């Protein structure tokens, strides 16, 4: 049992969507999918620390620059024709070939990624079916986290990606208002994922808030999904250490932040910005239990 301190107003809640579908074959690679600033590094560290699992960190986004350039561009089994030259690039071919070979060479291998949500069909054509873990976080907290690092705003939520949003979007405003832009991209991505892309795929939904506030249940579900596994002492220790009074905390680096602070990040958003996020993301937030109906 992992004891967490009393958390003001934060508790695991039931989402309004079906959260777990299983897939039988352990050789199927897993993909931990999340939007930026949602805690995926931490969850990936938990997964990597399991003796029977191997997980790479952003093998697409951090190694092939195209994925940042076309973040929310939707791909089918083949990238759009204008990307043909990219796919024919010898380095890209060699890299993807190596990556595919590694993922399929042994069971219980996978990766975490922040830029593949719109490219799942392509990913499955490249590798195989994957077992998906979708990590989500309250978009108000995501926005606070993105605004905290101004030099990376345009890397995480590039203005160029607004072209892929529905025409009804107020693009002028989004270009100049990072809160609005962050909310738009978060809502677009999660709406599409939850309502379309993931309806037919094996997947597990994990809320960062549940992982922090109710780790026992979340870890059990996670490792069961990853291949009929149980959490090991390493993962229990990592979670316990998170709440340890002796832990060395820092405000500047996400994996060393106080979990209470992470859970309460959304309180750092001014009221008018909070309303902006809730207005843009409201339907998805309600689905995920972040807003009352």
């Amino acid at each position, binding site marked *: 049992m992992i004891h967490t301190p009393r958390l003001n107003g934060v508790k695991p809640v039931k989402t309004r969507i079906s959260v777990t579908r299983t897939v039988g074959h352990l050789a199927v690679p897993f993909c931990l999918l999340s939007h930026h600033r949602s805690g995926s590094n931490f969850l990936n*560290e938990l997964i990597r*620390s399991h003796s029977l699992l191997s997980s*790479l*960190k952003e*093998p697409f*986004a*951090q*190694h*092939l*620059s195209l*994925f*940042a350039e076309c973040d929310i561009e939707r791909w089918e089994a083949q990238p759009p024709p204008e990307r043909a030259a990219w796919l024919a690039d010898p*380095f890209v071919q*060699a*890299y993807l070939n*190596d*990556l595919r*070979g*590694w993922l*399929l*060479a*042994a069971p219980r291998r996978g990766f975490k990624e922040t830029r593949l949500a719109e490219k799942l069909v392509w990913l499955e054509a490249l590798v195989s079916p994957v077992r998906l873990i979708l990590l989500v976080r309250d978009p108000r907290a995501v926005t606070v986290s993105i605004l905290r690092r101004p030099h*990376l705003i345009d*890397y995480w939520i590039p203005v160029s990606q607004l072209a892929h949003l529905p025409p009804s979007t107020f693009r002028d405003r989004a270009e100049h208002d990072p809160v609005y832009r962050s909310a738009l991209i978060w809502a677009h991505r999660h709406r599409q994922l939850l309502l379309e892309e993931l309806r037919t795929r094996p997947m597990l939904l994990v809320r960062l808030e549940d992982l922090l506030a109710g780790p026992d249940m979340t870890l059990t579900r996670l490792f069961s999904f990853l291949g009929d596994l149980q959490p090991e002492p*390493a993962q229990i220790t990592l979670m316990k250490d998170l709440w340890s009074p002796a832990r*060395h905390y*820092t405000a*500047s*680096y996400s*994996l*060393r932040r106080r979990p209470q602070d992470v859970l309460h990040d959304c309180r750092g958003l001014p009221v008018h910005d909070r309303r902006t996020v809730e207005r843009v993301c409201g339907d998805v937030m309600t689905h995920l239990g972040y807003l009352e109906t």
Partner: protein
Amino acid sequence: MTELQEAARGWRNFAMATEIAGQSREKAVKLTIDGRPIGAMARHLVTNADLLRFLNHLRISGLDIRWLANTANPNLPVRPAGPAGEFTCSPDWLDHPATGLTWYGAAIYADGVGGRLPTETEWMAAAGPGEYPWGDSPPDAGLANYGYHRGSTTPIGAFPAGVNGLFDLAGNVREWCGDAIPDAANRPLRVVKGGGWASPPADLRTSARAVKLPLMGSATSGLRIFYPE
């Protein structure tokens, strides 16, 4: 691969002409296995200052640098961010260990300066007989940079040297080795040793071995030069 071989030759000539070659050799630590001399290991990791010279030299040769180093990750300190696409690095990071090199980049760098990447056995000889390079006591944040205590690399030599006088063998960055380990599909993976700033404590053990895809230059992997006897 011919392009890579040509690039390696060009870098070797440049390194020889500018006396970059052998710079770390003078202070390298001589190693033996079973009393037999095997060569010498650089006391320090290769730094971002070294990497900057390396990549900017090769950039003008016209080689596709992605075979040698990761140019896609904006968090890497050495980035092609100059006005003409040249690699730059903030002065604060020049004395940090080089990161982002692919295995090929690391191997070509090492060859050009007159050495090579160590084998796992040579690396373990450099680390000494203890469970960790400093002995048998478990890691803590004062002995090495690991477990996200610092959140990134730290300047080389900021932690106490190991029993053989080498710095940063455990933690800071994982170190590419020359060994190829075939996976189940018979693809060569490359060994990395020592654990890095993001590694759990168990990865700092001298005996711990991790393997990586050779084209995957990451923010947690660097290199150290071995000079064979």
